[in-house]
């Protein structure tokens, strides 16, 4: 904002500025642009250009085996007879992604809140707990996905081993192969992995709550649950909302976890996995790009809505 005002040689209140000052600010403005240029170039090269190429390819019938031969088919990939809108496989992937995102974010928020409240109690082991809690978050997703698929394996898995030993089941459960259990297993692993992240963000919000509110409540003898409901929750709600939006955006483009644990299985395939399958396995550059473009716009739309909501809340506060 400041840049544009000073650049025109007019102060914010509309009165002209002395020429020397205008020259100086124009110079500063130029310098600012020069400073920004490398980042803008890099952004355009690594984000803008691929994005434009993807959108461009989504309007063609390009195929990876002969990328130089293609023709424009415009919106055929989206709304044509064989387009995405009429493709049950795509909608299956959209459904899976939504189920995954809603389930995992809800569970992670609840568990994260619980963990954060526990850790927020002053205690000597708190620092240690805080570090230990971060271990699942620190393990790369591919590693933890692989680790869990071995643990959940129907023949050699430790989970089945103990369930059998304790007499809870009689035959080993094929966690990642059984269509009715696979999504459950994936959500479980994601919750295990990402709860620490939620807990940490919520903990940060908890520590921002002014201590005098609690003191006043204690003086008045307010029961603990009411304190939580009337003081803690409203004060940390904005923090939780931000954390949920972050997680939601992350969950909507989930790829590695699902790909490693259940590969291209239809029962758990997310939008990103669908895109990869079309682009790499099926070599459908055009169709796959269309799916990638839809995925991009879906996430962009959700981001914009979320930002609006958060900003209007801030304005209210």
């Amino acid at each position, binding site marked *: 904002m400041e840049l544009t005002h000073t650049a025109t040689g007019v102060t914010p209140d509309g009165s002209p500025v002395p020429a020397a000052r205008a020259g100086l600010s124009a110079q500063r403005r130029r310098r600012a642009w020069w400073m920004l240029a490398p980042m803008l170039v890099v952004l355009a090269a690594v984000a803008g250009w691929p994005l434009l190429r993807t959108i461009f390819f989504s309007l063609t019938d390009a195929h*990876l*085996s002969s990328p130089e031969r293609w023709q424009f088919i415009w919106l055929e990939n989206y709304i044509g007879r*064989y387009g995405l809108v009429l493709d049950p496989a795509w909608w299956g992937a959209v459904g899976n992604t939504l189920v995954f995102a809603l389930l995992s974010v809800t569970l992670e928020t609840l568990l994260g809140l619980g963990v954060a409240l526990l850790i927020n109690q002053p205690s000597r082991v708190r620092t240690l707990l805080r570090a230990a809690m971060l271990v699942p978050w620190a393990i790369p997703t591919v590693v933890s996905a692989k680790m869990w698929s071995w643990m959940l394996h129907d*023949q050699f898995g430790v989970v089945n081993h103990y369930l059998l030993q304790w007499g809870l089941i009689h*035959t080993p459960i094929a966690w990642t*192969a059984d*269509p009715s259990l696979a999504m459950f297993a994936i959500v479980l692993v994601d919750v295990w992995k990402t709860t620490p992240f939620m807990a940490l963000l919520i903990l940060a919000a908890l520590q921002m709550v002014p201590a005098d509110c609690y003191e006043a409540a204690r003086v008045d003898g307010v029961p603990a649950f009411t304190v939580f409901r009337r003081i803690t929750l409203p004060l940390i709600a904005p923090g939780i909302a931000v954390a949920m939006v972050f997680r939601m955006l992350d969950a909507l483009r989930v790829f590695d976890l699902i790909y490693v644990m259940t590969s291209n299985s239809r029962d758990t395939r997310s939008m990103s996995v669908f895109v990869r399958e079309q682009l790499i396995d099926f*070599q459908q550059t055009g169709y796959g790009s269309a799916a990638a473009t839809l995925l991009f716009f879906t996430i962009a739309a959700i981001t914009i809505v979320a930002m609006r909501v958060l900003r209007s809340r801030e304005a209210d506060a």
Partner: protein
Amino acid sequence: MKCTTSSRLLSAIALAVIATTASAASIKLSCSGLGQELELCKRNAQTWATKTGHQVQVVATPNDASERLALYQQVLSAGSDKIDVFQIDVVWPGLLGQHLLDLKPYTQGAQSQHFASFIANNTHAGRLVAMPWFANAGLLYYRRDLLEKYGEKVPITWDDLTASAKKIQNAERAAGNDKMWGYVWQGRAYEGLTCNALEWVASHGGGTIVDSDGRINVRNANAAAALRMAASWVGTISPTAVLNYAEEEARGVFQAGNAVFMRNWPYAWSLAQGEGSAVRGKVGVAVLPRGATQGGNAAALGGELLAVSKYTRNAGVAADLVMYMTSAAVQKERALAGSFNPTQPALYRDPDILKANPFMGELYGIFNRAVARPTSATGARYNQVSNEFWNAAHDVLAGRTKPDEALERLDASLNRLSRGAKWN
């Protein structure tokens, strides 16, 4: 663009001709690194290099077949000459064909010494894009001792198999062997299930999903009967976990002595007969059964081929390497050293090979009658067809869909992805 490509190609061929006569060329060869494959491949290639004065460099590629395919597709669609000779799967000629060199000018008729089914499979749009290297076909493994004990014969039809499996499984369980199963096979949703299900369908006279003219013919009563039969095995003569079995899981159960019958590829033979195997000396191999009334025996054709990239700078030399590697002498050496099945019928009468691998004599008839997966008709879309087919089959096996409904849906989705059986 086209002009420059073809002139580049011409000059490449010219260069290659010069190279063969004048200077030594360096050929980059990709072969699979599974078990002893890599070592044998290196050894044979080195022999060729010493003989011809050229150099061979073996390029490492991923072991996972679909990862390897993705790498090849990227290398080839970039028009790169990073790899000159590719080891490719039997189902890939349709996917990669347009990037591969027509080998006909270099074979001097050698293709007539190989199984005709392979040569037909390797012909893409009238061009011979690969030479067969070694063969695979679906086989029925059976426990000879158990069949004798209960007076059962090697099954001729699928009904025989079901009945024998049930009888022996129940009798063995009653005798205290409660881990015994009748039949294990590959039921996980992956390419292996396409092979298994294609065998059921083809042996019932239900066609091969897509016929050679590209017509989708999978929606028929015979195919439905085949799938219904397979679904009836799950939980009765086959463990429910078979829905997640690939080759190695099935072999694990059979080799531990816990199954009467197994469907698998030839590689399982030397392992089942190897030291430490619980079923050593008790195993027999036969043709997979056929449907009761219609159809004949059908074994899915598998195997590996060698192909030359169109973008190589040494086409002549690279093709010479392929011809050497697929020659009778090298195939014999590989059969003796690693039980790799030759692709030349004459070698199945070779006494040395038969002595080392007694089961190979029985395989001869199987390769001649093997059913190819519909790769040539579906071309670049084979992957998608196979994916739809194994998903449909898996839905039926898991009991989530009735065979007729699954095939109806499969027919619709195949029509959809082929844009009305047009396939390109």
